[in-house]
């Protein structure tokens, strides 16, 4: 094969490759470039700094890679007299020394500045404590001004525009707390408190995940992050701090009785009732949450009943037994009671 023919083959490959890469990128971007769990759709300061760092590094790296590759191909395929300049001292000094030094001298301070600006705790931040447990998230809002302390689970609600100071730790093994739309990851280590700060810039529903393998159900350990306007957040907070609602109809009262006799209260707290277990998620306002089972199922009476009756089937290895022997009616009453706890 002569040079010309080789060049044509190569040219053909490159063309196909570029087309495929573009198609793949569009496909990925449709799925990955926006959404509730995407680092490519930043909704907070840290996340957008990390996003721009990624864009600059990727685009810059790609351009340099393409430039170097073209020079390489030129060095191989161009006629000797035309490629001679590639071997001169000037090319080596400017292209091989000056260019990398200048580029890296710009990137290094930029990277250090991103590092410095990420993670700075702000004045008047809202403190939230999150404890990773196999395989769910305990979320505590400490007392703040007039607002009293309370616990919830698998859901973090934050006001838009206010700095959030999250302290994380773990009750068992190492987990990692990650809300891609708001910033980087932070490890949750038993016996240690780590901190991460972010500010939600726009209202919306986002999703966080456990980013450190922590056991069987690691992949089903997610949580919802809901960014609300400040007034809506205060209203939510006031509601959450209240004790649980009284059952309004006999069916729900029956559900509460089943909850009591079934021993659910030894693991779960429902504030305002005698259920005060601290082992599992606080269920005082479980009906108000978007999802159950650590971000796994939408929250409605059907999924609640399914969860209670088949816990070990739908999330095997979880620290809650299945209650498969409840009659259909009892299950409906119990799930209805859970759902009524708005």
């Amino acid at each position, binding site marked *: 094969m002569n040079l010309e023919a080789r060049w044509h083959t190569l040219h053909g490959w490159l063309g196909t490759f570029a087309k495929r890469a573009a198609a793949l990128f569009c496909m990925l971007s449709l799925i990955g470039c926006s959404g509730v769990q995407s680092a490519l759709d930043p909704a907070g300061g840290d996340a957008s700094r990390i996003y721009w760092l990624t864009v600059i590094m990727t685009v810059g790296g790609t351009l340099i890679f393409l430039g170097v590759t073209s020079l390489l191909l030129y060095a191989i395929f161009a006629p000797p007299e035309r490629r001679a300049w590639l071997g001169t001292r000037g090319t080596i000094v400017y292209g091989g020394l000056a260019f990398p030094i200048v580029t890296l*001298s710009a990137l290094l*301070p930029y990277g*250090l500045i991103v*590092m410095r600006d990420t993670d700075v705790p702000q004045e008047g931040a809202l403190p939230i404590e999150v404890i990773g447990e196999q395989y769910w998230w305990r979320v505590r809002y400490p007392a703040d001004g007039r607002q009293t302390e309370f616990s919830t689970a698998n859901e973090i609600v934050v006001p838009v525009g206010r700095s959030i100071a999250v302290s994380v730790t773990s009750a068992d093994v190492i987990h990692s707390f990650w809300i891609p739309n708001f910033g980087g990851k932070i490890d949750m280590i038993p016996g240690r408190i780590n901190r991460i700060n972010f500010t939600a810039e726009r209202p919306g529903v986002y999703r966080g995940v456990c980013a450190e393998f922590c056991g069987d159900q690691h992949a089903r350990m997610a949580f919802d992050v809901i960014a609300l306007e400040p007034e809506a957040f205060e209203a939510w907070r006031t509601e959450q701090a209240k004790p649980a609602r009284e059952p309004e109809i006999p069916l729900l009262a029956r559900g509460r009785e089943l909850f009591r006799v079934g021993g659910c209260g030894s693991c779960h707290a429902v504030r305002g009732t005698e259920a005060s277990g601290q082992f599992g998620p606080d269920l005082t306002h479980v009906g108000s949450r978007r999802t159950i089972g650590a971000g796994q199922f939408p929250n409605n009476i059907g999924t609640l009943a399914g969860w209670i009756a088949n816990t070990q089937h739908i999330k095997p290895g979880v620290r809650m037994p299945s209650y498969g022997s409840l009659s259909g009616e009892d299950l409906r009453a119990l799930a209805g009671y859970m759902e009524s706890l708005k």
Partner: protein
Amino acid sequence: MSGRRTGQVLLMVAGLIAWAVQFTIIYAVTSTLCGRGWADAAFLGFEIVPMTIVSATLVTFSATLLAAVWSFRNHRRKGEQPVSGADSFMNHVATLINGLSLVIILWHGISAFILPACA
């Protein structure tokens, strides 16, 4: 190896040694002080951690600058008296390594001006 060669080799790696010294000082002092919770410890009004980074940088930078100038002059002198191919090559490389070491030592030092002492 003759004494002259040893000197030449030393000069060739002088910048790298200075860089290693800077590295060791910065890491040792920063991790010890930060680990002990002395992030804000100050001496004569200067915070110790950034001051250590800056002075280690200045000292190693100056030493490397000397080495760079020296090797550059050796390299330049080659026109005046006949030198062997090996000498010429070593002088050339020494200039290059010492010059690059200057850059890397500076890169190492700038973090003191951007990042908090113990982050």
